[in-house]
């Protein structure tokens, strides 16, 4: 890690935690602000590698794309809930569970986490296992259509790959 990145990570962690402290405390007198800043500095020095580890590039672009991705994901969550509500309340309960496996080209920790959580939140599918080395996913699907959405369409894989700029 270069020296500039180290200082950037330290400062960035400190700023994020200071904002968070002010938000959560809501008390603006000198004692609380100063003690908060001291605590933020100590934690930032100890754990600066956790938030910014300096490995990946294009952080700003990725963050922007992630923010663009979130509204689509929220809409998928609403669809997922309507789907589950339909299956629960339908008298015949139209479910046909199956477990599917597929491989993706994603390798990064954060992109795999995003895809796994997205799969769990979108209609009819839950991630069971992820194998990071090969980007392999085991997914439990509640019926055939949601499984096909992951296996055939692959909209979500392409969207996540686009967010993290991994082909």
């Amino acid at each position, binding site marked *: 890690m270069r020296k500039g990145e180290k200082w950037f990570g330290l400062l960035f962690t400190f700023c994020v935690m200071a904002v968070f402290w002010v938000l959560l405390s*809501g008390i603006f007198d000198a004692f609380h602000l100063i003690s908060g800043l001291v605590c933020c500095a100590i934690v930032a020095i100890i754990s600066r590698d956790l938030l910014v580890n300096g490995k990946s590039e294009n952080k700003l672009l990725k963050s922007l794309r992630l923010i663009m991705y979130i509204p689509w994901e929220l809409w998928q*969550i609403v669809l997922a809930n309507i789907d589950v*509500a339909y299956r629960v309340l339908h008298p015949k309960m139209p479910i*046909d569970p199956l477990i599917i496996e597929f491989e993706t080209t994603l390798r990064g920790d954060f992109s795999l986490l995003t895809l796994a959580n997205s799969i769990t*939140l979108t209609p009819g599918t839950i991630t069971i296992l992820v194998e990071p080395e090969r980007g392999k996913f085991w997914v*439990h699907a509640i019926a055939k259509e949601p499984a096909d959405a992951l296996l055939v369409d692959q909209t979500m894989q392409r969207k996540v790959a686009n967010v993290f700029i991994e082909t």
Partner: protein
Amino acid sequence: MVIVHVVVTVLLGAGVFFTLVGSIGLLRFPDFYTRLHATGKCDTLGAGLVILGAMVYHFFQYPETLLVPAKLAFLILFIFIANPTATHAIMKAAYKTGVEPWRLGEERR
């Protein structure tokens, strides 16, 4: 003020509806994995909508304390990260200990 109350009521009602559906699904679905489908999804949106309703209400009723809606927004964010992760962890534990998934036509467990 009336329109705020209508919006808040709709949000809270939708949240309660989805939480209720999640609970019914927990009782109706046939096995462990499908039950997690009901709770893992519906609880996320249900709790999110209820908190969103509280946020809107507080924002218009007590505009002098904007910190409370901000804290509630963080609550929604953390629920939306933690809930799928926990669902996935339970699912993985069940799969690794060899809980057999239910197939169509079998008896419910």
